[in-house]
């Protein structure tokens, strides 16, 4: 007798087909890459395998007669506060397979979301709000180390700089696209991100999968990543962008490396990553040349040497308990920007335990890092880039008021191109054509569509940020940076407010 697979007895979702509406066009069968919809050619009818449904809603969205509804499966276990279906099913899965629980996106647990406990200020009477429709409102931000003072000389009655500023990166909007590798997401999404970054005056990040030949033209809007696997890394790649990001860790899975399953390694990806077709791309947990902070310094300057000091070097870490001290070490090691990725940061694939339980919320991390760098008098030596769980423009404003120079968005950009947060990116079967390299599936999201959606999203956020700045009575983003006066807490404890350095509403 075959061993029963307990997990398959209790599907998560239920595919409801409204037969009066169904015309049996079989669109659902074609759309579902998980094969949850099945056509029976003998009986000439459709049936469903609910266990295969991941809840991506692709069939529901594409059904021409709207005959499909995807619901949570109505079957219920007896209520138990501790042993919820989530834990029961996870135990079944592991008992069935003996493996590590895998998932995607960022932390799904309802930990306190500090952004949702912070409210913003606005002007009333004593100072006038500024109307961004009538007055200039500036979001331009420069990333990179800044000297403390300027050396100025007077020549023929005119002031000028004695020497030019060191290299810095200009952003027209303080929102960049977080590292998502070609491989984890499709080439089309990469093309969309790159083009949107160029038109918005910001940067996108290659992730650790190398840079596809078609994307070199977007170099001045590109951050190339150097992660522990060193996939696709060569001198032309390092010189292709304006910054190199050393990825130490990621908020979704602090302390472990990445894994791109061999199934996702197609011909094109193999070329870009410089690995054989079909081979797993496994990034080790540490960089094998970084076992201490001085080794990081070694790598930072090796990269700077390789690029003749023309490129900035970012160092990305997951927000962990000791994040402030680590960030301080990174700045002292010579990084031009510290990227902090919080607990809520997303991923294409992570062990569930890592995604949900490791790391600290980004809000607390930004505040702690900013404070530490200020206390040590080295805040101007590096920019702080915050990422992980930024869902709307108000989150961006709050992150900057807490001390970030700019933010990264990843998940938000993917949702903009159609992601429904089914959290199954690691399967490589994304029916929306986002987190997949299947040549048939990626056609579902053409690069032009990806570009337009991403561009629109950031444009809208930028507009909203301008409105919020104007309401606060400031007309330039630098006056928001670290400006805790613009924040008040609602429902936070004294300790939390101390860490965030904010007062409670009403104070």
């Amino acid at each position: 007798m075959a061993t029963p697979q307990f997990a398959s007895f209790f599907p998560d979702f239920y595919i409801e087909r409204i037969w009066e509406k169904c015309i049996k066009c079989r669109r659902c069968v074609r759309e579902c890459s998980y094969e949850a919809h099945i056509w029976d050619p003998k009986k000439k009818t459709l049936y469903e395998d609910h266990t295969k449904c991941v809840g991506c809603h692709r069939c529901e969205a594409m059904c021409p007669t709207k005959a499909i509804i995807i619901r949570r499966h109505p079957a219920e276990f007896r209520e138990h506060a501790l042993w919820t279906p989530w834990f029961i099913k996870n135990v079944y899965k592991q008992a069935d397979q003996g493996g590590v629980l895998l998932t995607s996106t960022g932390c799904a647990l309802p930990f306190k979301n500090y952004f949702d406990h912070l409210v913003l200020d606005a002007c009333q009477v004593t100072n006038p709000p500024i109307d961004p429709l009538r007055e200039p409102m500036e979001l331009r931000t420069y990333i990179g180390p800044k000297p403390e003072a300027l050396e100025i000389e007077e020549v023929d009655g005119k002031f000028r700089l004695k020497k030019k500023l060191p290299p810095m990166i200009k952003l027209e909007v303080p929102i960049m696209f977080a590292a998502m590798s070609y491989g984890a997401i499709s080439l089309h999404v990469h093309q969309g991100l790159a083009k949107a970054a160029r038109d918005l005056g910001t940067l996108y990040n290659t992730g650790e999968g190398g840079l596809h030949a078609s994307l070199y033209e977007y170099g001045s809007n590109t951050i190339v990543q150097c992660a522990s696997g060193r996939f696709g890394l060569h001198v032309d790649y390092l010189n292709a962008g304006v910054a190199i990001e050393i990825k130490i860790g990621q908020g979704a899975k602090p302390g472990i490396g990445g894994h791109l399953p061999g199934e996702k390694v197609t011909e094109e990806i193999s070329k870009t990553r410089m690995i054989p077709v079909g081979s797993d791309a496994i990034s080790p947990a540490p960089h094998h040349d970084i076992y201490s902070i001085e080794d990081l310094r070694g790598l930072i300057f090796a990269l700077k040497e390789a690029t003749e000091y023309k490129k900035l070097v970012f160092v990305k870490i997951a927000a962990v308990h000791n994040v402030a001290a680590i960030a301080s070490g990174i700045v002292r090691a010579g990084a031009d920007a510290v990227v902090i990725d919080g607990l809520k940061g997303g991923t294409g694939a992570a062990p569930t335990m890592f995604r949900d339980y490791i790391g600290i919320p980004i809000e607390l991390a930004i505040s702690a890092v900013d404070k530490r760098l200020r206390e040590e008098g080295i805040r101007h030596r590096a920019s702080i880039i915050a990422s992980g769980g930024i869902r709307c423009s108000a989150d961006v404003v709050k992150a900057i008021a807490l001390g970030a120079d700019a933010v990264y968005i990843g998940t938000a950009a993917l949702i903009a191109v159609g992601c429904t947060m089914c959290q199954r990116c690691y399967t490589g079967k994304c029916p929306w054509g986002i987190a997949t390299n299947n040549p048939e599936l990626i056609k579902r999201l053409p690069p032009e569509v990806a570009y337009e959606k991403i561009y629109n999203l950031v444009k809208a956020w930028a507009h909203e940020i301008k409105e919020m700045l104007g309401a606060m009575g400031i007309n330039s983003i630098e006056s928001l940076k670290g400006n805790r006066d613009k924040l008040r807490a609602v429902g936070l404890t004294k300790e939390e407010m101390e860490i965030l350095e904010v007062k409670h509403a009403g104070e």
Partner: protein
Amino acid sequence: MWNIALRAKELSGCGIAGIIHRKGELIPGEMILKAICCQYERGNGLGAGFAAYGIYPELHEYYALHVMAQNKQALEKVEEFLQKHTFLNFQEPIPTKKVKTIKDPPLFKRYFVRPKFDEEEAEFCDITAEDDRMVQLVMEINEKIDGAYVISSGKNMGVFKGVGFPDEIAEFFRIDEYKAFIWTAHNRFPTNTPGWWGGAHPFTILDWSIVHNGEISSYGTNRRYLELFGYKCTLLTDTEVVAYILDLLIRKHGLPLELACKAMAPPFWMEIDEMPEEERELYTAIRILYGGAVLNGPFAILFAYNGGLVGLNDRVKLRPLVAASKGDLYFMASEEAAIRAICPDPERVWAPKAGEPVIVEMEEGVIPNQKSYLKPRPAEVKEDALRIGYLPPLLFSSK
């Protein structure tokens, strides 16, 4: 009395006025009084003040500390502190007069001092080190001695301020008995903090004095920026940060006045993008480095020092400021009426544009300790602080 917990920065509207004589001739106190009283409606009786330059010519080598104290004990603590850290040349109570409407005023005393240095420090002792030391001492008194504040600390100048209408404060401090080559005055309309004597304008550090009409919405950012350089904002008003920013940018970083003003009220990026290359690079650099020094929000300020008077508006001019001149006299005020009240026939009257400073410096060599900030000077910072981000890579040690 002012142990009120001030938890937020103040918000206020106000009237301001300033006069300077370019040849250093002395202007009687009645004149500034008339100009500020003309703007009576701009205040609400919760604060007024005056800054006068050139009032202590015999003691011009010494820092004149105007100290405000809640009680004798606080004053004694200040004196003990000064005994320890300074050479005290002369001290006296600041002459005041009883004014009916002013109830329960604090004690005011002035001390003429020079800072003492430890032996080790003494070898580096030059004028700038003296200034730095003085800043430190003032910060220490303001922060650590309960109930005592140094309200001005420059040479040959002093600030007189308190809770009341300008005419009341002038009467209290007997302003009509002083003559100065620069005067500034303030009439306050605070909206969310109790009127307290320390919260009145002008604010000062060394011989910088500021009067301010407006609200600095970037206060949180400015304060944190200044803390990086050791300035402690103890008076919890936005005007205080202006004084420290001026001190940092001009005295410590050596920016010429005009560029310091441009750092505080910078041109817009769209204007900078249109500038010729060298100018564009300069302004881009100023905005990048001094983003923390941008005074964002509506303001008109007047600031003075031994040698000059400057008027500045915010970058979109959300508060009024008018300037005028007649011969060697220059006037600046919130309203033209205030100027006409003391100079009915000015040769020139103009409204300065948003972010365009009006800088009036005295002719060279007309007063003691004269300062001029029109030219750039080398920044007084550590060599490596200027080289951050440049080649070759720098090793830097912890603070």
